[in-house]
């Protein structure tokens, strides 16, 4: 396998798939819809943000980012779920396989093309993500980190979709399974988690059920939303001092509070707290501490999944082929 070979395949793929004018129109529509919705969202926040402290840039960033993540992950299977079996159906794969191009060249080239397209899709949403950064509501490091993680997650979905297209003979089936995979990651993981909570809960000494989420938090880890929210560097906390009555019966509270309407932060705190076994004891808001991070596990799992899928597609492209998929003629 060589970088030259992979680049050649990637260029060819982009040229043949994306040269049609249709793609330009689709991307233009995407740009207008995402940024338009973000603008409306912002206007809604402005109208609402009378009582809350902080800039509307924080919820805007989080909300737009999560929406962009879910939407791009839903688009991504369309980019690569037919890249191998579709070529076989069109009769262009075998002529590629008889050239000295290695299976890895073909697999990585195709992945680079679809991932690159996915990144262009992501790039088009950047204006509405950069707005809160330009305002100073969000630090540039946070923006860079989340864009990087989103880019990686798009790559994982590209790789998995391509893996399905290498494994399955029919492109309709591979598209379906790619969407199911994305669905399983986004919706399936919280579903499994919810089911697992009562199953793993223990009877506490006081007779109440004691949820042991510290044993099953990892079920949520592969979820792209969780990974993204948890990987985003948390916003600085604000110190809250409440001092009621200066006299002897005075009551004083002093704690740090995270910005209240930061969607990324609240998801992150929520999943991190799942890792703690705080038993039946419900600490007061001020005393709550965050658990250890969840995202490294989730991201590692997803990256391993993606790498495995690339390996599967490369090995499925290896010739001479011994096992021919049922109902497939190579040429």
């Amino acid at each position, binding site marked *: 396998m060589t970088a030259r*070979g992979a680049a050649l395949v990637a260029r060819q793929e982009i*040229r043949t798939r994306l040269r*049609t004018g249709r793609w330009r129109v689709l991307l233009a529509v995407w740009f207008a819809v995402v940024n338009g919705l973000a603008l409306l969202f912002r206007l809604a926040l402005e109208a609402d943000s009378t009582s809350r402290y902080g800039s509307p840039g924080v919820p805007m960033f989080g909300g737009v980012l999560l929406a962009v993540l879910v939407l791009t992950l839903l688009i991504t299977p369309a980019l690569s779920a037919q890249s191998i079996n579709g070529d076989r159906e069109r*009769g262009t794969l075998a002529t590629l396989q*008889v050239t000295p191009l290695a299976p890895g060249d073909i697999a990585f080239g195709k992945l680079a093309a679809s991932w690159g397209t996915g990144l262009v899709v992501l790039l088009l949403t950047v204006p509405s993500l950069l707005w809160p950064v330009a305002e100073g509501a969000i630090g540039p490091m946070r923006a860079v980190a989340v864009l990087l993680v989103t880019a990686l997650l798009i790559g994982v979905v590209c790789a998995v979709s391509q893996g399905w297209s290498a494994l399955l003979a029919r492109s309709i089936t591979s598209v379906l399974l790619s969407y199911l995979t994305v669905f399983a990651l986004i919706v399936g993981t919280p579903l499994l988690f919810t089911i697992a909570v009562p199953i793993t809960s223990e009877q506490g000494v006081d007779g109440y059920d004691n949820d042991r989420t510290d044993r099953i938090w990892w079920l949520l880890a592969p979820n792209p939303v969780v990974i993204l929210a948890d990987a985003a560097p948390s916003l600085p906390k604000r110190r809250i001092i409440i001092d009621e009555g200066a006299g002897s019966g005075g009551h004083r509270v002093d704690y740090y509070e995270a910005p209240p309407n930061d969607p990324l932060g609240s998801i992150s705190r929520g999943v991190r707290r799942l890792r703690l076994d705080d038993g039946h004891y419900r600490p007061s808001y001020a005393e709550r501490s965050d658990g250890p991070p969840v995202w490294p596990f989730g991201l590692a799992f997803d990256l391993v999944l993606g790498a495995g899928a690339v390996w599967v597609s490369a090995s499925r492209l290896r010739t001479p082929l011994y096992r021919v998929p049922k109902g497939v003629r*190579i040429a």
Partner: protein
Amino acid sequence: MGAPEGLGIEARGVSRRFGPVQALRGLDLTVPYGQVTALVGPNGAGKTTLLLILATLLRPGEGRVRVAGHDVRADPGAARRALGWMPDTFGVYDQLTVQEYLEFFADAYGLAKEARARRIRALLTLVHLDEQPGQPVHALSRGQKQRLGVARALVHRPRVLLLDEPASGLDPRSRVELRDLLRSLAADGVAVLVSSHILSELEEIADRVVLVDHGRTVGEHAMADLAEAAVARVRWRIRSLDRERLAEALTMAIDDLPGLDPGLGPVRELPGGAEVGPLTETEAAGLLAALVTRGVPVTGLAPAGSALESAYLAMTETRR
């Protein structure tokens, strides 16, 4: 360029099954350099399967296959660099021009930039597509696409060329040109293996013919030998101005012909004549003389079909 040592293709005892279907059962094949070898057999005989194995796309179940001296299982990469393959059906990419299509494959084979431009120009001239280098490939006609496929297979100057029914969809002129192209490649020392159902044409292209049926080699002949052997006994077509007189005379001519042991064989009436045989050339000459003496207005006597066709029909006769 002379013919290199050894054989272009050497296949021994190749077998291959697809689930319950045994596509190849111990097929043998040799293709020498500098010659055109024809692969002939009925539908489903396993020709395409064999060519896929030779093209290093499909692994043989058993048997040993060497292409340009490289074992296809042990060293498919080396075999791939030496062979050019054109499948019977293939797709072309959308949105590419003829020029770009060939450039891509030239790059895939690692041709240098300036050699690439020269090679592509030469290939386009060779397959007569030099007037449409800027035309999108998906808009080409079937025959043009077929010719583009030939150009693609030749882009890296392969020493072994595998063509699966290359003539289908070609107009008569393109066929003649394909024939000349294959002959000139063979003259340059390339080992050419071509499968086709158009027997009359193969007779002019091929030096050798390999007959396959049910996944087995049933005959491997030099075309010259085949022609000689077939001359021994073929069917003959007689054309006459008067069909009735001819038919009448044919029924009686048998008695007059000495040494015509099996008789005239089945006599088949044709528009404007009849078909008889198989007969040797001597017998046919005797028959013609007998017909003429009886006053039948004979306008033509010629072997029906070709030597290859006779051999092919004899081979497939067992099927019925």
